[in-house]
């Protein structure tokens, strides 16, 4: 592995390892909460911090962290007010962030490293040993908080109203989650850049959500996927000479499309098989009932009929009744449900 001979690549791979692990661990809660673009907005806000950091010659990473967390807390407070103006407030915050960052960076004295591209799209090979130490601390904090509060974050992301009704500290948990997102944004800044951060939080979770059977499984799977695409993308970018951020995100998107396609194909074949059977029986319309000539087989709350060696179960739909092969439709759509609700 010649790639490991270079110190800058060692640092790059270490950074992408941490990002790959931490970003999906936080992102899965955003996916659950259907707030996928929060990370994107906080990326915008972080740019102000970068601008301040560069201008004052302090560490941009630290300043970005402060700006992003402050923005995150502000957003949650606006959201908690629950007013429609909240949407506009978020837009002001996000675009104010990116505009402020661009202007501040342009004011930096010439001769200073103010490469806007490096922050917007990532510049993994510029990761310094100092950055790496900061990233390590951020990663440990993120993963610890997720481990400690994961179930509570899940509860709030899944059903905020229920969480409030039973007395969970909803606002505090939302602020914690937003702060985690902000930390992830800063952590991912060097690797994928502020404009692509959301992708690394959301895409691995989106893939995991298609495959997993439980939330815990989805969380672990998302971290695994994040780790693999992050390392693979960084390695690939070394050989192809492409930017690491874009390469990682394209890999993740390719994986997502592949898995989504596979799942869709699997479901479509299932549906087609079902339609073929329904069509078969429509060809000889026959309503099973007492004395219809087929052997009745009581099963729970309904009666199946032995039809040429296979069991037919009644399936009522809005248009009438047809008969399925036994065991189909494990999850019937709640047909009569909507009628009686206020």
């Amino acid at each position: 592995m010649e790639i490991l001979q270079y110190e800058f690549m060692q640092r790059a791979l270490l950074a992408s390892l941490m990002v790959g692990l931490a970003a999906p661990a936080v992102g899965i809660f955003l996916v659950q909460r259907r707030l996928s673009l929060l990370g994107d907005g906080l990326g915008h806000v972080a740019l102000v911090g970068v601008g301040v950091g560069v201008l004052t010659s302090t560490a941009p990473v630290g300043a970005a962290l402060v700006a992003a967390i402050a923005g995150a807390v502000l957003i949650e407070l606006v959201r908690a007010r629950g007013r429609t103006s909240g949407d506009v407030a978020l837009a002001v915050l996000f675009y104010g962030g990116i505009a402020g960052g661009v202007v501040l960076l342009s004011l930096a004295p010439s001769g200073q490293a103010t490469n806007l591209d490096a922050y917007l799209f990532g510049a993994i090979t510029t990761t310094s040993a100092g950055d790496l130490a900061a990233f390590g601390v951020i990663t440990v904090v993120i993963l610890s908080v997720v481990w400690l509060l994961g179930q509570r974050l899940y509860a709030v992301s899944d059903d905020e109203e229920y969480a409030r009704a039973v007395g969970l500290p909803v606002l505090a948990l939302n602020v914690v989650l937003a702060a985690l997102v902000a930390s992830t944004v800063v952590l991912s800044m060097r690797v994928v850049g502020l404009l692509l951060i959301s992708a690394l939080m959301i895409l691995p979770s989106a893939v995991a959500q298609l495959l997993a059977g439980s939330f815990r499984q989805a969380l672990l799977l998302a971290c695994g996927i994040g780790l693999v695409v992050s390392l693979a993308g960084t390695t690939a970018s070394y050989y192809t000479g492409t930017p690491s951020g874009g390469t990682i995100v394209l890999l993740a998107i390719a994986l997502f499309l592949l898995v989504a396609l596979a799942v869709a194909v699997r479901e479509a074949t299932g549906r087609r098989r079902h339609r073929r059977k329904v069509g078969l029986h429509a060809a000889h319309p026959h309503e099973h009932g007492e004395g219809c000539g087929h052997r009745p087989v009581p099963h729970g709350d309904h009666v199946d009929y032995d039809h040429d060696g296979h069991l037919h179960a009644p399936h009522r739909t809005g248009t009438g009744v047809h008969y399925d092969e036994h065991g189909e439709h494990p999850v019937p759509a709640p047909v009569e449900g909507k009628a009686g609700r206020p």
Partner: protein
Amino acid sequence: MTGRTLAEQQPPGPDRDLAVGLRGASIGYGDVPVVQGVDLTVRPGEALAVLGSNGSGKTTLARGLLGLASVLGGEVTVLGAPVGRLRDRGRVGYVPQRHTVSGAVPATVREVVGVGRLARRGLLGRPTAADRAAVADAIEAVGLADRVRDPVASLSGGQQRRVLVARALAAEPELLIMDEPTAGVDAANQQALAGVLAEVSSRGTTLLVVTHEAGPLAGVLTRAVVVDHGRVRYDGPLAGAGPLAGDAGHHHPGDPDDHPATGYRQHQPWTSSRPVRARDGEQ
């Protein structure tokens, strides 16, 4: 109204002994009251139906008890404390009016029910053996013990509703508030739910069930409060709620106050039997 008189014959004790106490309570959202001037006392262990048509304010009443709607006037106490100052909200169980459990990310029955136990575990507490047992018991109680590891999304609508009931039971609540638990649930699942509630009630848990059709739970719920246009129109035995509400002399289309004899089937939904689908998701 006879019903109101019945309730008045038992003067309310000190509020701290009540499961729920409302005195001249107005509840609503923002500064708009939906429910006004409601007096209601529910003693521990009672099984109460809150009946009413769509938009009558029955759901707002329940949400006021949960801290999800604002108390705009009067007094509202829950488990002896003013609703805003109830410290241990975990003592109140809540089954929201919702058809399904719908997160973007899949979750198992055990994971969803486990959330119900969180309120009992403190800020950072890890699950103890007692917590796990409570979750397992709650799942067992709703008859889904063989589905604990299954994704909730793979269950039928009625089963998902039972998962939400189990989530509330996992906290071992003293007061269980349910919003339309039987709406859109097939007969088999309604019966299962009635069985669960009978068991919960026999253990001394106070039940407050918001519904527009108490019929499926008639064996469990004993007392009824009829809410109409944000006010209590009837308070008395469940059996008397339908006809009594119909005698209120207050008729307009879509109002469930109509007497069954008027022939408007949809106007007296909690005494009607719902059509039963031939086949439910239970396998």
